[in-house]
């Protein structure tokens, strides 16, 4: 039987099982569904492990398995499993039915795997939507909370708008090449570039521009990032652990593979566009980020800044660096959400910066883990965040690559942006360790009910990964 079908079967079966659990035990407090969904995600990863090691096509090229896509799919599955693990107690706290939430997350998981493996336009579009539509639901999942409703609706309207642009781009690319298979599109575009078929090239370029715009919208690259902080602020933390960590990895990975694969002949167009996106993200993300006092909004602007760096990596055409950056970013943001979930009181989440005051006194280990994650976000040496940023800069400056003009200036801008972002990460560190609870006139440090094993496990995993990636792993070229 087709190995691809076997690898997707656990996700579908898991979804069906969750549906059965939902109809027979529709209570909030049950952890059976968590077990089922983690087993399903794990089984998919194991099945993918046994695929033939070389590049393979399934269904006549609709699924195109490359080593890069496989690694990204593993990262997505692992991060989704981590988010599942985190959700257990938190979902009870915010009165969300756990089974329903997990079904939606499994659907996202399936979409992410297929997004990394898509080989033609219909698969790409369906996988993109299978990631997007459940994400809108996740953002609006706490349906009793008006802010969550607003976040979900905002995400849905803007996301649907960007999906339409994406589809329009795909349609133009199809119109220019007459192919839906991505490899065939690459060949047709290369032929058009070498023969100089102007009409086809113009169509394909318009299509590419629309696709880039839509994906920038989706991942929140400045100047299309205005919705991102609002959506983060309204969503619950468990959903954020999915839509802000594995989903970003999958969509950025898809963008990278699309540009390096099918649109490689049009590199003259997309390299400057990515460079622009990176420059604007570095400026806007940092300048708006330093004003924030809400933690979720702050993390949203940090996501914008990181998106800029990932775009630089994609522009540098280096799969290793992009995978490294995405993996490190994914685990850092998963760790952040885990820490926020652990900090909340039984009634509410922490959100304001002043809520964290004095955390270092009362809960040393939690504050230490959070500090390490923040240092990695800021890009202090010996953390994975530093290795990832450094790798991106080195690859972008690689002499054998024809970078567009002004690359050096944009890199400098990103580095300066990185220095500015120190300020807003260290604001949190200062609140946790240095400030006394009384000095801000706020209440005492947030009550941590008890550090549950799943928070401890995910936090410990992310700290271990951050430090080991930062200290022991050597990037090619580093």
């Amino acid at each position, binding site marked *: 039987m087709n190995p691809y079908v076997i690898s997707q079967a656990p996700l579908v079966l898991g979804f069906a099982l969750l549906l059965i659990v939902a109809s027979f035990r529709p209570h909030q407090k049950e952890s059976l569904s968590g077990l089922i969904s983690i087993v399903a995600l794990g089984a998919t990863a194991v099945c993918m492990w046994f695929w033939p090691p070389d590049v393979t096509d399934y269904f006549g090229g609709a699924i195109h398995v490359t080593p890069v896509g496989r690694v990204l799919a593993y990262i997505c599955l692992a991060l989704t499993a981590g988010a599942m693990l985190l959700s257990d107690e938190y979902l009870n706290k915010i009165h969300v039915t756990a089974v329903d939430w997990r079904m939606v997350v499994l659907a996202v998981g399936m979409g992410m795997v297929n997004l990394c493996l898509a080989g*033609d*336009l*219909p698969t790409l*579009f*369906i996988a993109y*939507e299978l990631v997007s*539509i459940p994400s*809108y*639901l996740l953002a*609006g999942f706490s*349906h*009793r909370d*008006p*802010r969550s*409703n*607003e*976040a*979900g*609706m*905002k995400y*849905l*309207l803007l996301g*649907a*708008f960007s*999906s*339409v642009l994406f*589809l*329009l781009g*795909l*349609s*133009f690319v*199809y*119109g220019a090449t*007459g*192919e*839906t298979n991505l490899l065939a599109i690459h060949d047709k575009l290369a032929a058009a570039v070498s023969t100089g078929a102007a009409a086809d090239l113009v169509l394909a370029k318009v299509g590419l521009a629309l696709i880039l715009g839509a994906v920038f919208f989706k991942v929140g690259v400045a100047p299309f990032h205005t919705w991102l902080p*609002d959506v983060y*602020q*309204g969503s619950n933390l468990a959903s954020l652990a999915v839509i802000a960590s594995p989903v970003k990895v999958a969509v950025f990975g898809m963008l990278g593979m699309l540009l390096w694969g099918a649109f490689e002949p049009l590199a003259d167009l997309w390299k400057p566009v990515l460079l622009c996106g990176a420059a604007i993200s570095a400026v806007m993300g940092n300048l708006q980020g330093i*004003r*924030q*006092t*809400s933690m979720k*909004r702050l993390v949203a602007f940090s996501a914008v800044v990181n998106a800029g760096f990932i775009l630089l990596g994609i522009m540098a055409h280096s799969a290793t660096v992009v995978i490294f950056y995405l993996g490190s970013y994914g685990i850092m943001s998963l760790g952040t959400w885990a820490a926020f979930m652990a900090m909340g009181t039984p009634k509410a989440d922490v959100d*304001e910066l002043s809520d964290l005051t004095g955390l270092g006194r009362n809960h040393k280990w939690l504050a230490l883990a959070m500090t390490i994650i923040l240092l990695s976000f800021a890009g202090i040496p010996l953390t994975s965040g530093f290795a990832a940023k450094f790798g991106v800069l080195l690859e972008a400056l690689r002499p054998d690559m024809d970078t567009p003009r002004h690359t050096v200036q944009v890199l400098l801008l990103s580095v300066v942006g990185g220095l500015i972002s120190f300020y807003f990460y260290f604001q949190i560190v200062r609140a946790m360790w240095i400030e006394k609870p009384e000095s801000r006139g706020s209440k005492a440090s947030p009550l941590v009910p008890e550090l549950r094993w799943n928070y401890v496990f995910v936090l410990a995993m992310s700290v271990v990964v951050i430090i080991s990636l930062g200290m022991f792993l050597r990037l090619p070229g580093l």
Partner: protein
Amino acid sequence: MNLFSLPNCLALSLTLVLIGSYGVFRRRSLIMVLLSIEVMLNGVNLSMVSFNFFRWGTIESSHYLYMLSIGVAAVEAAVGLSMIIVLFKNYTDITRERISRLNETGAPAGDGI
């Protein structure tokens, strides 16, 4: 003069997309916004079908994409309408600018969705 040509069909489809995007940004009722997104999607579908008909008539591959996109549009509308119902329960209103509780701390209410 034959009006039924690729440029005309593309112009029609782009007009639909533009009308839809005007609606997405300017209409106040959320239901009208969802309808505008549907108009945009139909414009895109029209462009796919017309590319297929006028340029690459021998292959049907774009028809699959077009049919899939109709299905996806239906799913999106279903999710959107259910969200509108939940919004109406909480706000008793589905006008965009009145649904604006997310903003920076201390700042006045946002511009809405």
